[in-house]
């Protein structure tokens, strides 16, 4: 609404746009380290699951796909990193990259089937693949340890310097830094023409085909990205806990990560992170309070969010902001400048 807004340099614009975010990303680990060092483990858990939920957001929140089998990629990433570490490849960063590669490959392979179908069928096909991979891992006891889990991981210090300690300090900072890097990449993706294309596909795939988008190819690309991020999240979880459980591949985890994302708010960059934090912390607090009936509380939180905060925690924040500042009634998304007049009077 301010056509007279002066064209700013890229640098200044970037800082103005991202300054608050950067401060937040620095403040959070600092706060954990200073005030809550005994919560390193919980924070690590939140960070890894947050990345996992973020990866699902690319599919569900942005591209408008459905998945109840996303744990398949998380688990394959975890097992890849785990098996590498068991068999002498303990270097964590290369482990992450290899896990990402393997998960991405699995994403590519399964995408052909998953993208052939829509709606409920898509939900069920992803669920079916997830269950098949779970069963395969359960059967391959010689490789995965079956339901006893994969034991005997030996993970080298990060960068050869930081050993994983009992208190989870290294694990936390390692996970947090990887999360931050992935988040930057994800932000790039979301802000890119490709990201905009995904939103277009979510809003109206028919119209996307009519403007000449090869829709299947774009969705496949998104699916592979999501698989890669999920694989990294799984690998992080494996390396920091030095153990891989069969449950990392389970339907339960697939459902949980969807719940986290919806709690936080799908289609927001921070939806997955906020949702993972809300879910994990709520579960931790409630189950410490009452180990038997905490599920009632978690279920209650979910029901209340749907009833009173449609669109998740971030959804309600956004609509509150819009109500308070009607001027901001624009798409809060992203990088396409809101006003076509940003380039001043030249138009």
């Amino acid at each position: 609404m301010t056509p007279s807004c002066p064209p700013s340099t890229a640098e200044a614009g970037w800082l103005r746009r991202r300054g608050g975010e950067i401060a937040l990303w620095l403040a959070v680990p600092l706060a954990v380290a200073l005030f809550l060092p005994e919560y390193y483990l919980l924070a690590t858990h939140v960070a890894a699951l947050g990345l996992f939920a973020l990866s699902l957001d690319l599919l569900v929140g942005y591209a408008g796909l459905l998945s109840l089998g996303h744990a398949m990629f998380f688990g394959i990433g975890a097992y890849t990193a785990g098996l590498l570490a068991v068999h002498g490849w303990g270097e964590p960063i290369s482990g992450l990259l290899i896990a990402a590669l393997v998960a991405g490959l699995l994403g590519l392979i399964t995408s052909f089937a998953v993208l052939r179908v829509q709606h409920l069928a898509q939900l069920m096909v992803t669920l079916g693949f997830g269950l098949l991979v779970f069963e395969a891992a359960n059967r391959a006891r010689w490789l995965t340890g079956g339901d006893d889990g994969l034991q005997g991981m030996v993970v080298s210090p990060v960068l050869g310097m930081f050993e994983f300690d009992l208190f989870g300090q290294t694990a936390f900072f390692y996970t947090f830094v990887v999360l931050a890097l992935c988040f930057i990449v994800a932000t790039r993706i979301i802000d890119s023409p490709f990201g905009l294309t995904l939103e277009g596909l979510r809003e109206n795939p028919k119209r996307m085909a009519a403007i000449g988008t090869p829709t299947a190819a774009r969705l496949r690309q998104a699916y592979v990205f999501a698989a890669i991020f999920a694989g990294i999240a799984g690998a992080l979880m494996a390396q920091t806990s030095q153990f891989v459980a069969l449950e990392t591949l389970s339907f339960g985890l697939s459902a949980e990560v969807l719940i986290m994302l919806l709690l936080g708010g799908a289609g927001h960059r921070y939806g997955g992170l906020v949702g993972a934090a809300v879910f994990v912390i709520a579960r931790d607090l409630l189950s410490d309070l009452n180990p038997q009936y905490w599920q009632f509380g978690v279920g209650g939180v979910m029901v209340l969010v749907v009833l009173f905060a449609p669109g998740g925690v971030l959804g309600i924040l956004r609509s509150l902001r819009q109500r308070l500042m009607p001027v901001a009634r624009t798409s809060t998304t992203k990088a396409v400048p809101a006003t076509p007049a940003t380039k001043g009077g030249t138009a």
Partner: protein
Amino acid sequence: MMKKAGLLAALALAGASLANVAVAADDPLRIGVIATFSGPYADYGRQFDAGIQLYLKEHDGKIAGKKVEIVKKDTAGPGPDAAKRFAQELIVRDKVNFITGLDFSPNAYAIAPIVTQAKIPTVVMNASSSAITTSSPYIARVSFTVQQDSAPMAQWMLKNGIKETYVVVADYASGTDAHNAFEKAFAAGGGKVVGSVRTPMNNPDFSAYVQRIKDEKPQSVFFFFPSGVMPPAFLKAWKERGLDEAGIKLFATGEATDDSYLQATGDVALGLITSHHYSYAHPSELNKKFVKNFYAAFGKEMRPSYFAVSAYDGMAAIAGALEKTKGDISGDKVMEALKGLKLESPRGPIEIDAATRDIVQTVYIRKVEKVDGELVNVEFDKFERVKDPAKEAQ
């Protein structure tokens, strides 16, 4: 350089938390319980909790003169990731002196490296995979191993003229362990396993498997399923298809007739012969007192199962060890004291093997009968001082 610094910092911190070796007398004894308190297996945690509470109630809430504080962590079923995190949190945040509980084997395996690193004595109250005690020198077990309960069944069957059997197990790690231990013991005594099947864990209907057995007509069937919903479903299909009438004899481990579930399983369990280390109907004075106090504390709705008795014995083992160390709770001393510890348990005499830190106990052969209108496992034969066969073999 950095690596060393990090390590030193970690060690310093660890020292701080573990340095309370010489605890002041008024410091409480903190015990972390990692178990399943919610979800499909919530009964496990409930039984643990009852066993622990009963022991504490009988001892004024104290062990070795110290007030006991219990910190419960819910894994909601098999959840090694969660268990591992909980173990770390219990040690770092809650500063516990002992870790116990541990119903699922994967959960116990997952925490092994943690308790080793932190030197926290850990008493396994159920998880029954054989190698758990070998995975850390700080783990002792007061429950049983799958092999320990399965192999005696094979021996008893052989002794009673059964030379041929068909094995049915649930398709998971313990099922495989039970299968292998049973088959080994059975073959060693000249028996022959004529067929076997591993059923999926989420399988609700056993009729196809039972039909197949009926058509193959083996002399007998041995099965192993985890406590809970699978045994009743299998037994129902067994009765419905009339396999008893077909003359096929049925044997199982005591999980099939877990006291927690037996009454709900119903008459289909009648006559089933099982091998196990505990029946709440064990006819000793100590057990009668245990059951009486248990009912008094928690009501008759809940029978004490083998989970409750292991939890009770777990607390007794911790108390016994601390008695030997004269209250010293340093990990190495406690573990030393646990080795060779002998206890009189409601289930009978038990001992923690000095070499393996695993339990040595009597395994009973029982039959399901109706006593005063209730289904109970009536013990009628036994194998004394049974060690874990998997470790014996090594």
